[in-house]
């Protein structure tokens, strides 16, 4: 009698492997699980380290940016401090004798007021805070005292340095404030000796001014100075359209730029000469360089610290992966040995009915390989997922491919089957070499 309407069975080694796995699924699952742990440990630790590196790099960039801002702020603070030390460049008429300047306390030769605008409107980068001044020592008859009368109009905007200027072309932080129309600023010595205060009215050579402010003592001739608007000073002194000096602040980004200013001014104002107060300039350059060096040192120390941390993490991860791989291999070995013991009689009868050794080997190695393939896929996915999760890196920001590289996934996919086959090889060979006569005679 022949049966009908039954599905034909697929009789081959693969069928035996599949059915046995289904029959002993818990053994298969625990085997896969141990390989998943090893593979996920391998892939996960690499992704974790990479993610950690990217996240750290991201934090580091952020930190560096913050630090840079702090350093810029510090540099700016230094700059302001240095700026408050006053102008460090003086431009005079080329004919001006220095000994005469020293003995009189003011220049006796003149520049045109337009000269300061020629510098301001040039593309010269080394000068800033230009201040045209007309200053002479006079006898203030009304008060019976000698003073330095200074005419100033406030700082002339240097258009090549727009970040220092407001929308109205005024300096955001001028070294010296403009004197408002009709007013005068006083040095402390004058104010104290004449008992003058802001709001008092003074008369200078027939011109009336309201005291605007009194400067604190500086220990220089400024203490004996009276500042009025430039046009008033030109009128009082009878020097219309003239000035006798331009004060400026040399912008020093590096020490090597010192001295460049003379050449640049000479190119614009061939009839002028330049005096640099070099100690101030050098101090300013030194401060700026020190701030920059401090900045670099902090960043380098942080980078070194991160590198050391990373090396330590790598050592720990390598150790962990080795332990996982070893543990997983032992577990697979034990599982397969146990499986062989349980299937001893099955192996015996298969050999008795004509199965070759290599076919028995195929059954066990095939099972190991299948275990490894399944574990490789699950291990790679779970390892990558856990690695990303624990590293705190955001794949949307860092790019998924930067976190989980293809070679790592390929290695992970190969690792589990290779591990399973290696651990399962010896027991499988033992199974294939079992003597069926010994097994079958046990009955």
């Amino acid at each position, binding site marked *: 009698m022949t049966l009908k309407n039954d599905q034909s069975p697929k009789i081959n080694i693969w069928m035996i492997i599949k059915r046995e796995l289904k029959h002993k699924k818990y053994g298969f699952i625990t085997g896969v699980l141990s390989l998943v742990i090893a593979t996920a440990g391998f892939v996960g630790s690499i992704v974790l380290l990479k993610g950690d590196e990217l996240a750290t790099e991201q934090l580091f960039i952020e930190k560096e940016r913050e630090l840079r801002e702090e350093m810029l702020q510090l540099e700016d603070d230094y700059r302001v401090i240095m700026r408050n030390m006053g102008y460090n460049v003086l431009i005079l008429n080329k004919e001006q004798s220095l000994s005469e300047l020293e003995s009189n306390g003011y220049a006796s030769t003149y520049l045109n007021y337009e000269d300061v605008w020629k510098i301001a409107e040039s593309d010269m980068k080394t000068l800033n805070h230009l201040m045209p001044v007309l200053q002479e020592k006079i006898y203030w008859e009304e008060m019976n005292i000698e003073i330095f009368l200074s005419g100033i109009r406030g700082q002339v905007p240097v258009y090549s340095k727009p970040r220092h200027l407001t929308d109205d072309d005024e300096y955001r932080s001028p070294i010296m404030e403009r004197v408002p129309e009709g007013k005068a600023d006083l040095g402390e010595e004058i104010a104290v000796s004449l008992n003058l205060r802001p709001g008092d009215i003074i008369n200078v050579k027939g011109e009336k001014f309201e005291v605007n402010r009194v400067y604190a003592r500086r220990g220089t001739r400024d203490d004996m100075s009276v500042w009025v608007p430039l046009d008033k000073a030109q009128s009082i002194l009878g020097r219309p359209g003239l000035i006798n000096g331009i004060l400026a602040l040399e912008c020093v980004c590096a020490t090597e730029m010192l001295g460049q200013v003379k050449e640049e001014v000479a190119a614009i104002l061939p009839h002028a000469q330049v005096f640099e107060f070099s100690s101030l300039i050098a101090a300013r350059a030194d401060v700026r360089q020190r701030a920059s060096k401090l900045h670099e040192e902090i960043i380098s120390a942080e980078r070194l610290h991160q590198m050391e941390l990373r090396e330590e993490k790598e050592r720990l991860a390598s150790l962990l992966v080795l332990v996982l791989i070893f543990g997983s291999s032992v577990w697979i070995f034990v599982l397969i040995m146990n499986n062989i013991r349980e299937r001893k009689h099955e192996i015996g009868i298969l050999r008795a009915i004509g199965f070759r050794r290599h076919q028995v080997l195929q059954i066990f190695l095939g099972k190991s390989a299948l275990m490894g393939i399944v574990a490789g896929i699950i291990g790679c996915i779970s390892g990558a997922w856990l690695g990303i999760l624990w590293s705190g890196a955001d794949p949307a920001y860092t790019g998924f491919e930067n976190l989980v590289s293809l070679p790592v996934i390929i290695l992970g996919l190969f690792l589990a089957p290779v591990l399973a086959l290696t651990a399962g090889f010896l027991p499988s060979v033992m199974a294939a070499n079992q003597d069926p006569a010994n097994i*079958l005679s046990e009955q």
Partner: protein
Amino acid sequence: MVLSISGINKSYKKVKNEAVKALDNVSLEIDQGELVAVNGPSGCGKTTLLLIAGGLLYPDQGEVLLDNTNLYDISANERDKKRAEKIGFVFQQFYLVPYINILENILIPSIGSNSYSSSLEKRARSLIGQFNLSHRIHHKPGELSTGERQRVALARALINEPKILFADEPTGNLDDDNAGIVLNYISDFAKEGGAVLLVTHDGRIGKHAHRTYKMKDGSFLSNTLNV
């Protein structure tokens, strides 16, 4: 002659290298259509004889000719192949593969002999019908009675149309009814031209055999012709 065994000696080494003689100068011939029984108590060497005759255990001396080929003069692979093609085994313990159904169990020798085909599957289904197992075709061994299991084991042994069937205590786990059924199937195989070597300690089996050998301590004591 399907099987010719001559001058077989076999000893096992036990503790302290003291040899225990399992077979002592045993000779036997089985022709087509013959059912030969070897009867004797446990430990007399019956199973050893069957394993040696089946190409599973090297004898110390003597030769085993299966279809005129000395099984121990050929390579292990060739011996495996001969076993898959020309020998069927039935054991007391059945040794069915527990996780596949009975149709697959019966067809499993085709993997060893690389002989799976649709005609072989037809033969498997035919054997299932012949052995009254049709209603169990998709059942697994654990779901069968002991008698049914032994019938599956017998069908598995016969699937490749072997020249000779080796049966080791095939009724040892069966009740009288099932033992009778199984012995009838074995007899039918012999009647259809197959050769059978059946080893048992059950004296009642002798009536199914053409010849019965009494065995004790590794030697044949007597030879009874039952026909």
